[in-house]
């Protein structure tokens, strides 16, 4: 082998031998499971096995195009598994099967791809999820940014679980499962070369184990994972779907000091920053304490707190430290840092 770095070439997308080799040596080896190993065009999944676990399928898809592809706390591969698994978990389902589609830019280092694939395999394995089918395309240099991944997933929702924003009631409590904005701050610091010693990692994680115990609880009304748009976006989604408002107490928002620091510096708000391992839950006042203790039982939810409640007035409001309430608007696009 030469010293030159091995990279993805157009041949890896050709359908020929190079591609077969890559699929075999990289994907099949990493994701290794009976469905994938059948090497058919589609995974053949047992209906009986699925229906034993519940009465509805949850089915979701998401594409991951993050820059940079490696960051403290994870990489694009881990993110692609966590993100889709979490979308299933917050709908009440147990994530079971994932598909994954890769779009690779010519020139991507094979070592990097290997790291990404290994992270996907490990994350899926830890969460009891099987990556059962996939696809690989290679595009010419410049036509994509290193690597894009699409994952779709299915999971099963138990009969008793009926989480939906439409069931939210006035007086319900709003809970977050941990500190806000860790992922967003870690990515911004890297992407914009801010060069800060943040010591903050992305919170990227599969949340299904933390969420599962909530399914047997009465009074859990709605769950979402707060990704892009942060907790603020979820509050607005809840408000729009229920027709009610939400009032948040700013002093209760859990934020790591380093994340607050970066926000103060750039004039941004952590409530708008992305997370990849946090949920927002709306639960009845009676269920509040039980939900908090169940969440805190999981290492993923150790910092869970109540941040506010559902109000009749259909606005999302933030009550600040000095006692003045203000309306919380949803930023039109990603907020831009201020200059002075």
């Amino acid at each position: 082998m030469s010293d030159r770095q091995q990279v993805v070439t157009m041949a890896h997308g050709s359908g020929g031998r190079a591609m077969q080799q890559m699929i075999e040596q990289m994907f099949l080896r990493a994701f290794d499971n009976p469905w994938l190993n059948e090497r058919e065009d589609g995974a053949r999944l047992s209906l009986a096995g699925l229906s034993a676990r519940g009465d509805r399928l949850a089915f979701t898809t998401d594409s991951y195009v993050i820059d940079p592809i490696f960051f403290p706390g994870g990489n694009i591969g881990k993110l692609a598994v966590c993100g889709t698994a979490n979308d299933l978990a917050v709908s009440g389902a147990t994530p079971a099967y994932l598909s994954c589609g890769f779009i690779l830019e010519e020139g991507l280092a094979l070592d990097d791809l290997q790291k990404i694939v290994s992270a996907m395999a490990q994350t899926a394995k830890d969460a009891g999820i099987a990556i059962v089918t996939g696809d690989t395309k290679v595009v010419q240099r410049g036509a994509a940014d290193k690597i894009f991944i699409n994952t779709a997933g299915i999971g099963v929702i138990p009969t008793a679980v009926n989480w939906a924003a439409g069931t939210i009631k006035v007086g319900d409590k709003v809970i977050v499962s941990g500190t806000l904005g860790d992922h967003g701050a870690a990515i911004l610091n890297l992407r914009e070369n801010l060069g800060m010693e943040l010591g903050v990692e992305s919170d990227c994680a599969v949340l299904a184990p933390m969420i599962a115990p909530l399914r047997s609880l009465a009074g859990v009304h709605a769950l979402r994972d707060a990704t892009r748009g942060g907790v603020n976006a979820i509050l607005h989604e809840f408000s729009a779907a229920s027709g009610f408002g939400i009032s948040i107490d700013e002093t209760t928002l859990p934020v790591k000091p380093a994340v607050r620091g970066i926000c103060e510096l750039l004039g941004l708000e952590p409530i708008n920053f992305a997370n990849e391992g946090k949920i927002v839950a709306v639960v009845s006042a009676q269920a509040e304490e039980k939900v908090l203790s169940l969440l805190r039982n999981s290492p993923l939810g150790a910092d869970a707190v109540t941040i506010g409640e559902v109000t009749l007035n259909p606005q999302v409001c933030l009550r600040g430290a000095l006692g003045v309430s203000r309306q919380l608007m949803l930023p039109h696009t990603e907020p831009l840092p201020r200059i002075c």
Partner: protein
Amino acid sequence: MRFVDEFRDPKLAKTLIERLHQRAALLPFTAEKPMQIMEVCGGHTHAIFKFGLDKLLPPQLEFIHGPGCPVCVLPMGRIDACCEIAAHPGVIFCTFGDALRVPGKHGSLLQAREQGADVRVVYSPLDVLKLARENPASQVVFFALGFETTLPVTAVTLQQARHERLTNFSIFCQHISLMPTLRSLLSQEDVRIDAFLAPGHVSMVTGTAPYHFINKEFGKPLVISGFEPLDMLQSVLMLVEQVCEASCKTENQYRRVVPEEGNLLAQKAMREVFALAGSSEWRGLGVIEASGISLTPAYASFDAEQRFNPQTQPVADDPRSRCGEVLTGRCKPHECPLFGSGCTPHNAFGALMVSSEGACAAWYQYRHQETAVADNPQRQNVQQKVSQDE
């Protein structure tokens, strides 16, 4: 968080607010004709809305929002010039994030980027130098704007560029100096300002002396203030005390950051690189004498305007827009007929709505629903829902 939380302490704030209420009762101002305190700086405007400080003030006091957001005072035509420069083949055009969405007559820099121009957001002009070094085949242009807060960094960047003899780096200079702006504001006829909160960051550079004309010539008290809620409440109290004592001076509340003489090194760098040259037109403020900032002859070769010679674009604003009046405290944002309809953060007409520093954006973000709640369609849904539940 140290150095932040101690300046947001609710207990201390309460004490200050109580004191403000007591002292304000002694003022020759009333709720109908309150003492108008202009916060010059967009950073202060933002803090006022973020912490709801205006709602905590006694009725005899009122904040009016000044022209201290450098993006807000940019005439539309300058954005068009930026887009024109950015559209040159081989140009990498760098800007602070704030300026990206400000509309020119022919669109914003963001739209120029969508059309294929290479427009990049930077956090410091020094990042631009790095880009220039890494892209020797491109012309790298920095859209330099801001008051004395950002002037020194641009100056140092230019010194560095000259030292390295970079030939592919230039700046489109739209810096503005605060003192001529204040002087022009006070010289305008129907502007009523009773006192000033002066911006901490600018003062850090200039020091306190340049403000003295505001006391001496115009008889207005001024306090240089920090940006945390307690800083600002304390500064307002200092202004009220001045009026109660019938004194009129420049005071420095922000001593922990602002030295009396300012930053001498920064002043030196600014003097070497920039010169106040002639009058210049600013949005909402009209032509202000000696407010245009240009490069000294030694640095003239870094002037993007000379290098690219963009067309001058006098652009008349929509006659209904009241940007200028908002900037000079003559009216409140929601009193502009375009506010919330022709002009929203999603589709801004004026810079005051685009920049997060801008008074209109702050009002929209923090106050809009107070005025708009009556016609919110969601409200009707809720009422229906409630009556169904009953």
